[in-house]
């Protein structure tokens, strides 16, 4: 026996829980404390509180789980709990909260008052977290959620570091020498490449990249996750997922709403930064990536990064040709009158900010060379829809045209992310009867009618992922920077005035006519989603 090579040493850490084997919940968060910076804000009330409560009801939260709300407002623990409870009773998909369950959960909720620029507040926070570790058994595991404007990130992260709160485990200078520290940050992450790099740089001074979880809630949606299952779990689609069979791809992220009181923020941002930089390019990367070696976060993000690196930044002389930017004027959406963008509060009356953008991008890889990717997003569109539509090449020979049948429409595979998540395949079929008539029919699969279950909200999935330490649905620093590198030349060319005019479109329409021309030029047309 001694002659045979012994297998690898036992894995680090304690043996796995033998009772966990075969249970349905395989991802269980370790005991931890979640510190919400900006705990009195809108995000906490609308999203984080309800997400935590639903995760609790699902049985996913460890018994030791503790929440510390951290903000400037002078609140008692009781008042902060009441604030969270209000949000749950208003916005949770399971509401109202059940009193006995809530009370026992609320016993693990505290409030920490302090200013984010006050180092002493963070020293106090460190003491509080040590005490929680002792009292509630949270084992030195800390999850910081920065629910604050990005301009405050450097300050908060710097103060976390100075208070000894930024490091994980062994690297800690104070507090427990075990356990992890993770930080979740919200979008927008940067304003352009330079600012994103600067922000990444400042974060990297205090935190290792694997501690940082950049949230893009689109990636938490079931259908986006299902995109990998659809592509890599089925043998049927992958062989045709390339330039030989695919003619073009359209990605649509359409919203019916206007700026909804965020005029000041939006007017300085625009659709390209607000949607394309994160959701749009992430959908593109998930759609176009090569099969990852395995489903680990690093492998997945390596593949997404490769796609983004293959999207060559547009030379300035091509920007006017390959991009269309639009801004809505007054019109009617869903039966309601919508004022023009420039008439919205906090929006400059001569604003040049785009509320609509259509792009033609190319992925220069062996798989995708020559396949145009058309991406569009807009506000005040006729319907709210996010989808990826793949148009396949036509049959090589128009066999039926000899029998007097006109050209058959190409096959389309549409992956709908929201609403009515599902997958639709369009193909031609013979109309029964004598003679040869061909009509396009749809094969329509909907999640809702096959799986009549409640899907978790994206925030529930993502919060749990961060607690478990699974970063696959979060964006890595190099992905963020690469996405900006793709968009920077477009932004620069637009602001220099060389990027073509700002087009106007009526609220409640599918964007300016120039966007249609972008496709007509190539002999194609936008899908009516």
């Amino acid at each position, binding site marked *: 026996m001694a002659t045979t090579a012994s297998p690898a040493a036992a894995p680090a850490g304690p043996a796995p829980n033998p*009772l966990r084997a075969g249970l349905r919940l395989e991802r269980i968060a370790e005991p931890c404390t979640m510190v919400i910076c900006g705990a009195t804000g809108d995000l906490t009330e609308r999203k984080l509180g309800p997400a935590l409560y639903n995760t609790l009801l699902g049985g996913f939260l460890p018994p030791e789980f503790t929440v510390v709300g951290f903000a400037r407002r002078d609140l008692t623990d009781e008042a902060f709990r009441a604030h969270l409870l209000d949000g749950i009773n208003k916005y949770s998909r399971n509401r109202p909260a059940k009193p006995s369950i809530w009370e026992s959960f609320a016993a693990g909720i505290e409030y920490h008052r302090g200013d984010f620029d006050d180092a002493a507040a963070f020293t106090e926070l460190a003491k509080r977290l040590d005490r929680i570790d002792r009292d509630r058994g949270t084992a030195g595991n800390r999850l910081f959620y920065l629910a604050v404007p990005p301009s405050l990130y450097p300050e908060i992260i710097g103060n976390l570091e100075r208070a000894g709160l930024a490091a994980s485990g062994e690297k800690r200078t104070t507090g427990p020498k075990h356990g992890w520290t993770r930080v979740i940050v919200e979008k927008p992450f940067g304003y352009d490449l330079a600012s994103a790099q600067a922000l990444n740089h400042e974060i990297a001074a205090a935190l290792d990249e694997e501690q940082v979880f950049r949230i893009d809630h689109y990636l938490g949606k079931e259908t986006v996750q299902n995109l990998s299952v659809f592509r890599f779990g089925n043998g049927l689609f992958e062989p045709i997922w390339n330039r030989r069979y695919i003619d073009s791809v359209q990605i649509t992220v359409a919203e019916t709403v206007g700026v909804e009181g965020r005029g000041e923020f939006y007017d300085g941002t625009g659709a390209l930064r607000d949607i394309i930089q994160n959701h749009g390019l992430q959908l593109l990367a998930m759609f176009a990536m090569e099969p990852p070696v395995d489903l680990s976060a690093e492998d997945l993000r390596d593949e997404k990064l490769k796609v983004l690196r293959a999207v060559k930044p547009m030379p300035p002389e091509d920007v006017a040709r390959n991009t269309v930017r639009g801004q809505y004027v007054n019109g009617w959406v869903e039966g309601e009158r919508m004022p023009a963008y420039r008439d919205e509060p906090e929006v400059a009356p001569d604003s040049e900010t785009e509320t609509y953008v259509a792009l033609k991008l190319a992925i220069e890889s062996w798989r995708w060379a020559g396949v145009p990717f058309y991406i569009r997003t807009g506000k005040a569109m006729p319907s709210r829809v996010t989808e990826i539509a793949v148009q396949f090449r036509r049959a090589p020979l128009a066999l039926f045209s000899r029998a007097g049948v006109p050209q058959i429409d190409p096959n389309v595979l549409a992956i709908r992310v929201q609403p009515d998540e599902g997958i639709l395949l369009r193909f031609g079929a013979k109309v029964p009867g004598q003679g040869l008539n061909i009509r396009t029919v749809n094969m329509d699969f909907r999640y809702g*009618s096959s799986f009549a279950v409640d899907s978790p909200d994206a925030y529930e999935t993502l919060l749990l992922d961060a607690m478990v330490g699974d970063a696959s649905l979060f964006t890595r620093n190099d992905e963020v920077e690469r996405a900006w590198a793709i968009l920077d030349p477009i932004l620069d060319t637009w602001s220099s005035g060389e990027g073509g005019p700002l087009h106007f479109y009526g609220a409640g329409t599918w964007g300016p006519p120039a966007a249609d021309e972008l496709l007509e030029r190539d002999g194609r047309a936008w899908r009516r989603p």
Partner: protein
Amino acid sequence: MTGSRSATVERERAAHRRLMRFGVHPGQVVPMWETSDTSVQAIATHLSSLWMAADGAAEAAPGDARTVTEKGLAHARASVLNLIAVVIDDQAADRVVSTLLELGVRHPSRAIVLAPHPGSSKRGIDARISAHCTLANGGGERVCCEEVVLLVRGESAAHLAGIVAPLLIHDLPTHVWWPGDPPFRNPAFDQVVELCDRVLFDSSDMDDLAAGWRRIAGLRRRSGSGDLSWERLHLWQELTAQFFDAPRFRRYLPNVSRLRIRYAVAPSGATGAGIASPMAQALLYAGWIATRLGWKRHRTLETLTAGAFRLVLEGRHEMVDLLVEPEATDAVRAGDLLSVRMASRGETGAGEFIIDRAVDDAAVATNADGMTALFRRVPMLPRSEAELLSAQLALDRADAVYDDAMRAAGILLASAREVTA
């Protein structure tokens, strides 16, 4: 003789009346089709024309937006499985009807209810087919189901498989559900099971647990078997596992020295009303812990009497005192667990892990490491039979953890019946 004949006829009529209720579902989309003394061929033909009729009806009423989906397709039907339910007695007929109606919303399926009446004087098949759709997910999506009820009389009742096979939707998983004590000795049982990928039953309904579990273990279907009693334990297992997800408590696990399980029985008597084996869940839970922690049978301390027993098992490091006892209450369903207490020794002293159930929630406490007891309340709502069935239908694979637990539960039961030395 005449008496038993008329009793048979009366039973048949009662089953008829109960199964008729399928026809009055509010989401019904086509007129119910009902016919007596028909053929399998005629039933299959009607089933294939069913949705065309529904589409026709929708076109005739274009104003009714609900019948036409956004893409203009009426009744876009998605089916994920075939479900066969076999009704052997009247009581089961009631259960099947109410459960399947509730279930349809969760699992778009073709449900075939077989009611065999082998003792009937007449021969032939009576069929009743209805289709209905329900708006699920807050009204966004239509979930559609078909129910086929077949009353099979006389000799045909011994050949159920040949009647059902042509009526299944091809290429979909097929599950059979036996409400009540599965009739292992009935030839129809093996025939129908042979057609299916997964067999669903409830251990608590089995009169003879030990024999029933032996038979179930020998079935070997592609997707294994699903036990509703096991499904009822799901949250208990989850909560138990959670005690030991924290690495510092995991070291208590090999040293468990006492496990005490209390389960509910109806106050009126030792056996629960309508529950044949109220001890099934407690045994399965004990069997689960025993197999996960590698406990071995050692000796019997107190033989099974009035639903209680006490065994000594050999754990990894300690001898384990296992105590299972009933408690009369009508606060929860008979057979459900009321309390689990696990005692162990860690490096810094004794630890106790407690789950106590109230009506619709449970108190969960960890008392270990000499620190303040971790205490919380978690929801534990009673689950309907349809919910349990639904959760089991969602699993389309064999569950090795269950198979192990069931075998161990059988061994524990046999040990409990041994006379103490």
